[in-house]
């Protein structure tokens, strides 16, 4: 292809639970070459492993299959390629479900690829026997401390396997765990033939991927000056117009709501950015302090001059493990004297539990008076005058499930045995739910083998 060609890549799903309207509108409302979709979070992988252990064909993002069913005709007609990490811990089951949908619609020859090799749960003991300690990147502790409670273990794979799947003609690429920016970098590598040592270009793709990875968070969603955001209901999801030299424009489809300004894009660049000079992905290290960012036209922001460096010798591994139990519940308490009554209610709950032999340490219990400055605790200017009502939110946690479960039954009785004006107990007794701990670690790259396979409907 000519080097001055533009590739349009959009992200229609910022997280598991994002609106299906994002991707549906993206394929309908404007030109597009690639649609990327992010369905995974740390906790998601653990939930999916659990689903899969109960049902061998579960453990992937079923929302993705619903979406493909809804937009497949447009994808085929407009030749829009899809790259999604919807595979979770069972990418082949996801692929099979997608192939079924394609058959149902009567299309033939549509290629669906699976990128896998990220799931190392079954290899953990072998790897540990080979000397890998999987020390927690935050605490330094070796994985042996929680090994028997580990429920998922996935490597963040890079973008090259995605590019390989596209090279093999896939229209839909389903991956397991990978980096979010990789969903965007993969298509760029495929289209422009970037090589692993094109550090600046891969860094540019990383910046582009970071900007769009949370969907509408770069087009006016979660924006400080929210009054300036027009037509939020029809907010446009972001589209990257990428060039072979690595420069790109962030934009959105014409007629959609929201905005693309230097400020809206910079908001997202700062999101979860960490050390801006060293943004590490498996494909390279991007320098977020290196580029220039400018308004090129209405709803068009150009980013150019991104610099990057070589990748590190390790993959990041995301593991989850059982870390105890928690229960939270809430009641609404009206005025007069809402806050004072809420404080009394909380003390009554703790006292009644203690009376029955259940005491919770400070770090194992929580009380919030929502409406009386919870989010901005301790900041004087956020302090409200006497609130007309508050939501009393309480919770406990700990390793003992029965002890955590003892808390719930003492919350609702406040309605009849507490001060007046206590209501809002719909939802019943709070029950213990599992706490899924997060264990980030590093793993030498040579111990991981990404695999790509392509299937034709």
């Amino acid at each position, binding site marked *: 292809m000519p080097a001055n060609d533009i590739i349009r890549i959009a992200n229609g799903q910022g997280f598991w639970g994002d609106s299906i309207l994002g991707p549906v509108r993206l394929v309908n409302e404007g030109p597009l070459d690639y649609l990327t979709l992010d369905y995974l979070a740390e906790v998601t992988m653990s939930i999916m492993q659990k689903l899969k252990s109960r049902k061998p064909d579960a453990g992937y993002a079923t929302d993705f299959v619903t979406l493909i069913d809804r937009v497949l005709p447009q994808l085929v007609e407009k030749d829009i390629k899809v790259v999604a990490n919807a595979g979770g811990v069972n990418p082949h089951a996801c692929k099979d479900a997608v192939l079924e949908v394609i058959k149902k619609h009567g299309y033939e020859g549509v290629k669906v690829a699976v990128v896998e090799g990220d799931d190392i749960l079954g290899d953990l003991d072998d790897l540990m026997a080979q000397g890998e300690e999987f020390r927690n990147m935050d605490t330094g502790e070796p994985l042996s401390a929680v090994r028997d409670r580990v429920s998922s273990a996935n490597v963040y794979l890079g973008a090259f396997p995605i590019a390989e799947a596209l090279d093999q003609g896939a229209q839909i690429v389903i991956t397991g765990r990978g980096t979010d920016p990789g969903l965007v970098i993969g298509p760029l590598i495929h289209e422009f033939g970037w090589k692993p040592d094109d550090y600046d270009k891969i860094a540019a793709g990383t910046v582009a991927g970071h900007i769009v990875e949370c969907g509408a968070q770069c087009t006016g969603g979660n924006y400080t000056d929210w009054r300036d955001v027009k037509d939020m209901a029809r907010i446009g999801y972001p589209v990257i117009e990428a060039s072979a030299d690595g420069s790109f424009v962030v934009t959105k489809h014409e007629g959609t709501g929201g905005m693309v300004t230097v400020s809206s894009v910079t908001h997202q660049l*700062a999101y979860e*950015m*960490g050390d*801006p000079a060293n943004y590490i992905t498996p494909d390279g290290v991007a320098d977020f302090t290196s580029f220039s960012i400018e308004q090129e036209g209405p709803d068009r922001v150009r980013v150019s001059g991104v610099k990057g460096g070589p990748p590190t010798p390790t993959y990041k591994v995301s593991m989850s493990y059982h870390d105890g139990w928690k229960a*939270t519940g809430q009641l609404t308490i009206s005025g007069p004297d809402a806050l004072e009554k809420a404080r009394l209610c909380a003390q009554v709950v703790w006292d009644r539990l203690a009376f029955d032999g259940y005491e919770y340490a400070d770090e194992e219990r929580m009380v919030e008076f929502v409406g009386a400055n919870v989010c901005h605790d301790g900041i004087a200017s*956020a302090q409200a005058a006497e609130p007309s009502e508050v939501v009393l939110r309480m919770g406990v946690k700990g390793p003992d499930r029965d002890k955590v479960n003892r808390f719930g039954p003492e919350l609702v009785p406040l309605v009849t045995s507490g001060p007046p004006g206590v209501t809002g107990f719909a939802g019943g007794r709070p029950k213990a739910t599992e706490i899924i701990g997060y264990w980030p670690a590093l793993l030498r790259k040579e111990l991981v083998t990404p695999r790509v396979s392509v299937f034709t409907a």
Partner: protein
Amino acid sequence: MTRTPISAIAAARSGDKGEGSNVGILARSDAAYAFLKEHLTADVVREHMRAINTGGVKRFEADNMRVLNFLLEDSLGGGGSASLKTDAQGKTHGLAVLRLELDVPDDVLASVENA
């Protein structure tokens, strides 16, 4: 010189980063950035957020974006699914920092209005 919340001269975006939160502060003008770089130190943010964040605060600078990026190292009550807090992801911490009041020189305030 006017005592004002820094929301007058900055915007913000925040989210979780492990057991802490990442708070990006976006200056609204070059002069605002220069002012914030000098006065919005890690210590100032740490003191302002002390009821929310029990850990340290690190500051990074991205001059090209006029962004000061702060890591609040223990601000989520355990983080992820272990937190009992309403704001277990630190989504509101950016706005919390924007409530910080500083004595902002008139020329810095004017630079934002003209930006």
